């Protein structure tokens, strides 16, 4: 499976991706990723390409991603260069995230939503790779979807 995760600097794209990668490794799959941070620091685009259980290189060809995950909704045009299937969070979900958890756990809360909605990854394995605080944030996001 080929995933691309996109967002702005400061949104925790790298940690979001790291948890996904570690979850896949927990599931016994091989993982290859690439982080492209560019020169832009705060506010710049952060891009992670991830191959799970396939390939030799950590790069993904434009137009070939199975799914593009967007943490920032303004990157849709750029996301399209990787593939047609996109996963993004609604404005309501973003706002709720900010209310439910402290700023630094927003990315993991969103990850919980992603896990609940897609079932691509095993939530029990994801929990295993997180510390207590992150686990709480992840479950909050996950259960928010379940209870809807």
């Amino acid at each position, binding site marked *: 499976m080929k995933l691309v995760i996109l967002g702005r600097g400061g949104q925790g794209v790298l940690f979001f991706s790291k948890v996904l990668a570690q979850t896949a*490794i927990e599931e016994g799959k091989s993982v290859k990723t*690439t982080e492209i941070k560019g*020169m832009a620091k*705060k506010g710049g*685009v952060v891009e992670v390409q991830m191959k799970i259980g396939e390939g030799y290189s950590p*790069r993904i060809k*434009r*137009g070939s991603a199975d799914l593009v995950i967007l943490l920032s909704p303004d990157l849709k045009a750029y996301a399209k260069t990787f593939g047609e299937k996109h996963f993004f969070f609604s404005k309501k979900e973003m706002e709720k995230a900010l209310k439910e958890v402290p700023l630094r756990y927003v990315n993991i809360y969103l990850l919980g939503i992603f896990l609940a909605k897609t079932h691509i990854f095993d939530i029990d394995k994801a929990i295993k790779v997180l510390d207590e605080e992150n686990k709480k944030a992840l479950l909050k996001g996950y259960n928010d979807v379940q209870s809807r």
Partner: protein
Amino acid sequence: MSYRVYLSGNEAIAYGLITGGVRFLTGYPGTPSSEILPTAQKLKLRYGFKGFIDWAINEKVALEMAFSSSLCGIKSAVTMKQVGLNVAMDPFVNSAYIGPSAGFVIVVADDPGPYSSQTEQDSRVAAYFAKVPVLDPSSVEEAYLFAKKALEISEEFKIPILLRTTTALSHGKSDFVIPEITIKDEFQPAFKENLKNWDKEVLRLAATPKQRFLLHKALNEKLKTISEKNKIRYFYEGDILILTSGMVFSYLMEIVEEHKLQKKITLGKVDMPYPLKKEDFSKFKKVITIEETAPFIELLLDTEGRRNGIVPSEGELSLEVCEHILAKIGLIPERKSISIPPLKRPSLCPGCGHRIGLFAVKKVFGKKTIYTGDIGCYTLALNFGVTDTVFCMGAGVSFAGAMSKIFRLSDKKRFVVGIVGDSTFLHSGIPPLVDAYHYRFPFLLIILDNKTVAMTGNQKTPAHTKSYEGEPLNSVKIETIVEGIGIDFVKVVDPYDYRKTVKILKEAKKYLSESAKPAVVILRHPCVYTKEGLEKNPKKPVSIIEEKCTGCKYCISEFECPALQWDEEKEKVFIDKTLCINCGCCIFVCPKKAISEV
């Protein structure tokens, strides 16, 4: 026992070097090589072995230190980016003749693209030039294995080995299995053993030209033996041979499998591009080399590739480009190219001290002044007109010196202001400042001192007082160096104190006009990109007074804080609170006083 790791190419290299026995590791930070050394430091903290792992002032010094440590019998390595190898060229070439006494590896990261470098140069060519064997890994796991292999070859033949990586490999991550890490004390026994032979080694270590000839001959012998053993590895069974090395090999494997080209293509993987011998390719109907970034194997083995226009001569050979090359030779259909929308250009972080400091410089010296910039975050001052030249490390100082002299000799009067960061100044800005003082070159040098190598990920500088292990270090003061040269106009100011900064810059301007000697102003403010920097940064929340904002956009074009954004509907500026760090600097920028403290 073995276990699964998930590492980047750079981390894998550090694991390979340390488990391979390296006990002296130094280097100079440079994207994409910067994470190797900090990873080795983490391993040292975790396993607690004797050795030295820390940054050097520049690549030349780094290479000399690591090489001399190898002469003491300690396995040693040095890391740098490709343009850093240019800085270290003198000791690099020499190290092949002299030969190390213990394993010695030079890790160099190339940057095809380029993503964050001045050139796309290929370090394999530099290795050839210096007669140093070079290994070119194709995957993260190979980066780990080749780091170990490099040490083994180096130990066996007493020859330096260049381990080459590229951005795609250094920053790519992968999971793989390594044996359990056991760390032996390699330091003491190796050192003692080496000391026994010390006196005999003098002929080699301080060789005269006559002996150099003999050393050259011995080096050629070593290279010949190594090349005999160096064999190309073949994959698949087609009658078109594609030779390759490095990450491109992994791309080609993927493309071959995706398009089922196993019966059409044979991939020839070159693990060690130099020294490489010709092999018999007569059974193939075509031989092409696809490699980053120079036609290197192509020239050594005389194949098709760049020279007959099949492979593009510039840019990264990404998966897409590799596919395009195979389409060009008719192996797969051409894919429609995908156009990539432009992304926002990078700018200095919100609240960065460089921004307000250089804004003050622009205010005092005006737009006609020539600003010779340098390599660092502050290169981005280009965006708001306070940088006219960017060349190579330290050139901001030499350019300013020579250009100020030229203008003084000509009939045009212009101020020249050189801009250099603290770590770039220490790297190679001091020698040109000595010349400038000696020859009375009349320019102002701005040294932006944020006490870190910010651009490459906030590595430590010689200003620090503690090592990563908590050992005390002597802190180097830039003003002491500058005063020591003899320069008498030396001022230090925090650019957040805007009024004081402007006052000092005005004094400097007056000094230049009257004295015809160089002046130095050090703008000192910690980088706000680090956690401590941000926590300790003064807080002065601001807001836009909408009635006063005329929508002139001066603050956007002349100051460019990413948190100052344009509201299309209202045609006014607003502050993006998710980006703003409440530094309060923009208060001094708006000519209409529309930005004020809340």
